């Protein structure tokens, strides 16, 4: 399958498709387009024709305990979306594919082979004046078989503690500088969900949005390499990315793992809402 993109890194790894490419494959039976937004009402107001919509807050997480979607629920979600194990999944969403990257990460946790992001996401599709549909696509259910969860791309608290105290991995805090410094506990306008502000000791601050151009597309491989390299993140050591709840960091995880091809990259989805609420956890405030 050809991949249309201007990013050399994306071409190399085959994980990005352009809006033109998506427009030409709206009715391709081998492909399922999925919208995942920060604003879970956006899909209902108009979406890429034939796309299904997933809600990150109810469908891409465990709704009882704090965790990613359980394997059985994941299989049901993909089956009800008409996705088989060989389907090519094209993800897109608002806000530079923020939660689309969160879905991408979970799809990789459960071993889906062919999943890609639409470069530029919903914003670029709308800015280009492309068709929006409010119709729900007709789906033929499938029986999806997920693999066991791949923990090589997911970091849990003990590993992050070790990374911080022993510098066993490089920590990248992808939140805004004001969240990193502890000046604010949550992005402006969003609820505060932690008790303390600051960051995990030893973490470098590289806000996730720096990986994107103004039109929402990803920067070139050269620019991305320079961005992370300037903070010493070169892929030679293991990297753990975190943010507030693990979605912004899945975007950075995608960049490091799939656009730059760094081998050992994990997303710490517990992120600051776990660390910043721990009793006696070390907190650094610059």
């Amino acid at each position, binding site marked *: 399958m050809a991949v249309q993109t201007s990013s050399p890194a994306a071409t190399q790894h085959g994980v990005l498709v352009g809006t033109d490419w998506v427009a030409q494959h709206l009715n391709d039976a081998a492909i399922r387009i999925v919208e995942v937004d*920060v*604003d879970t*009402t956006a899909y209902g*107001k*108009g979406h890429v*024709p034939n796309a299904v919509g997933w809600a990150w807050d109810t469908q891409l997480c465990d709704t009882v305990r704090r965790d990613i979607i359980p394997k059985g629920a994941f299989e049901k979600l993909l089956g009800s979306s008409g996705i088989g194990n060989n389907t090519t999944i094209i993800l897109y969403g*608002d*806000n*530079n594919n*923020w939660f689309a990257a969160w879905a991408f990460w979970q799809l990789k946790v459960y071993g889906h082979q062919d999943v890609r992001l639409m470069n530029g996401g919903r*914003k670029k599709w*709308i*800015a280009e*004046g*492309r*068709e*929006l*549909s409010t119709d729900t696509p007709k789906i033929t259910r499938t029986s999806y078989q997920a693999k066991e969860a791949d923990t090589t791309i997911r970091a849990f608290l003990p590993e992050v*503690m070790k990374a911080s*105290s022993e510098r066993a991995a490089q920590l990248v805090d992808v*939140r*805004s500088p004001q969240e990193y*410094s*502890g*000046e*604010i*506990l949550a*992005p*402006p*306008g*969003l609820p*505060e969900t932690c008790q303390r*502000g*600051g960051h995990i*000791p030893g973490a470098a601050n590289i*806000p*996730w*949005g720096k990986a994107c151009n103004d039109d929402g597309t990803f920067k070139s491989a050269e620019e991305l390499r320079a961005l992370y390299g300037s903070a010493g993140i070169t892929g030679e050591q293991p990297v753990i990315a975190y*943010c507030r709840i693990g979605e*912004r960091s899945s975007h950075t995880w995608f960049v490091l793992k799939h656009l730059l091809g760094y081998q050992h990259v994990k997303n710490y989805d517990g992120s600051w809402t776990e660390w910043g609420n721990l009793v*006696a*956890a*070390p*907190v*650094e*405030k*610059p």
Partner: protein
Amino acid sequence: MPKPEEYSERKTQLAGWPVNIVTFRLGAVYHTTIDNTDPGAWVVKAQGASKQASESKALQEAELLLEKVKKSKPPTGCTSVPGF
């Protein structure tokens, strides 16, 4: 199938915070989204019969919300607990 038209995007400050304002028309309705630039999460959404009506409604709501953001005192140093 409708197509979004009159797409516009601009940055400004509201209650001291940088925001991004996106408006487009879908059919007869103008849609405005205001996001907080960093990280870019939407703060408010509004609709109106004109661009001005949609944006002014969104701006009002966003300003009220952003005025409530608390800032902590300037950081004074490391509060690490050794041996954790």
